[in-house]
């Protein structure tokens, strides 16, 4: 029983980690809390829904398709909203407010176009069968989630550590002005970071949509709470921190649901966020540069 819950928790946490990774990457490099990030999650889920329902594509085609689509939306939104603010070096709260306004506009436009109803992926998209390994049941959807998360996280780490783009991105996150001075094309790197983050959010939307089989416009907003908890607990901008914190949050949520009350999941997650802010605001791993007032 405990082992089963632990496995469920790790699988849920893997999706949270995937989602929060893009969010924290965006903050680390672009210094923006981009609240439209939750919308990319919703967008990914809806693209996958259209691809599987209307175009009858299998899930392994729909997933990358949705991720790329969400990535392109992210580049467009970042360009429209944030280029100007970056140029005038606006304070970080301005960019937070802009993305907040845009988030409301995007969600409510989407709700009035598509309606607020909960939609489901077509049945038979993935077999509901569970595989039993050493007494622990794992569904095929869960295996897909684990596989997709591992591939995406691996690809992100390779991109950041092994490529010139990755080097440019890491330079920007450490010294944005100096990075510009040594000839890094800041605008292009910013677009790339938005694209990668959007892809991660979109993929997260598809995977969570698969896991809970409920897709609706505001699903990204509920997910943002998890995103906030993970990036604060892991440390703002800290990639390894986000991975560990995401897994931990998944485990905590599943354990809360199993042994306390599933209605308290969100409250427990938020209590952790506030407790970390009180005791260790630089994140549990303490590597994020603390931005004091």
């Amino acid at each position, binding site marked *: 029983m405990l082992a089963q819950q632990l496995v469920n928790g790790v699988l849920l946490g893997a999706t949270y980690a995937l989602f929060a990774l893009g969010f924290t990457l965006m903050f680390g490099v672009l210094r923006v809390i981009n609240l439209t990030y939750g919308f990319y999650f919703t967008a990914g889920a809806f693209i996958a829904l259209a691809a599987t329902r209307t175009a009858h594509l299998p899930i392994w085609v729909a997933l990358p398709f949705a991720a790329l689509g969400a990535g392109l939306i992210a580049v467009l939104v970042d360009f429209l909203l944030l280029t*100007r603010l970056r140029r005038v070096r606006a304070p*970080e*709260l301005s960019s937070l407010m*802009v993305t*907040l*306004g845009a988030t409301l*506009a995007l969600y409510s436009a989407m709700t009035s176009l598509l309606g607020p109803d909960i939609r489901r992926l077509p049945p038979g998209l993935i077999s509901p069968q569970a595989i039993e390994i050493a007494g622990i049941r794992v569904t095929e959807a869960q295996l897909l989630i684990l596989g997709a998360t591992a591939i995406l996280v691996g690809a992100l780490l390779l991109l950041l550590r092994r490529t010139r783009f990755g080097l440019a991105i890491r330079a920007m996150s450490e010294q944005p002005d100096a990075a510009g001075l040594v000839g890094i094309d800041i605008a292009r790197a910013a677009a790339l970071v938005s694209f990668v983050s959007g892809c991660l959010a979109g993929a997260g939307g598809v995977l969570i949509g698969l896991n809970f089989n409920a897709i609706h416009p505001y699903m990204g907003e509920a997910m943002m709470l998890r995103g*906030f908890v993970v990036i604060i607990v892991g440390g703002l901008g800290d990639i390894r921190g986000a991975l560990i914190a995401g897994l931990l949050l998944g485990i905590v949520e599943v354990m809360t649901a199993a042994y306390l009350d599933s209605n308290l999941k969100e409250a427990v997650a938020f209590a952790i966020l*506030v407790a970390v802010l009180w005791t260790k605001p630089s994140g549990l791993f303490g590597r994020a540069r603390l931005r004091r007032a």
Partner: protein
Amino acid sequence: MAIPDWLDDLLWTYQNLIHSLGINGLLALSMYVVLAVGQLSLGQAAFMGLGAYSSALMTLRLHWPFWAVLPASCVVPAAFALAIGVPTLRLSGVYLAIATIGLGEVLRAIYLNVDLFGGALGLSGIPDSAETWMIYALLGAALLALWLIGRSRIGRAMEAMREDEVAAQVMGVNIRAYRMGALLASAVLAGIAGALSAHVSSFIGPGEYGFEPAVTILSFALLGGIGTPLAPVLGSTILTLLPELLRGFSDLRLVFNGVIIVIAVLFLPNGLLSWRMPRRAA
């Protein structure tokens, strides 16, 4: 009665609108107080919800009279403001913003799932003990108080820290104390607005204090600007009246509120009313 019939009819027909104008004015002021010290709290709707739910429970469960419920309705929002404000206000502004949006999401989930709060049905049968004059008297009192504070030494300190935090600190402004004071004042105003709205509409539900109203309250303040306390109230008045005046517009109301914020931040950093607090030279 001294009120002529036509005026009485008018007031009756537009009763809901008149109530929302006053309540949204109070919410706009609760946003203003925080923005005026250079911080961003997105917990206004959450604080309002805490005021609404705690006051409704005091009325329905404890059977307290309204004159006791109204002041008591600020206690819970203020406690939450302290729990979130103390750790975040020593950090950069993004932490307060993140924690307050999170608060709204969590509270919605709690109202929805915990029996005490009536779940998805919310709480109903709340007596309409709040009168229109109370709403406007409180709005007037809050405006006057914020106006006087704005013209005082405190107002100068607030403006200084909004413009340049470091310079203000060097001049001896205790910025942490001011920020905490502002957040508490804002929670109290929003809590009272919540109690008033619960006691004019007889019903409150979990969906009324989530993300959409939180952003809408920010759009009030950004449309008006934050130069003086009158400006955000003007913003809330415009954004409350507009959907009533333009039929067919109400579907797109939220899209419009979001776009207002984008435009205000990108192109109108001082809002519609960009004048500053009038002061005599010191």
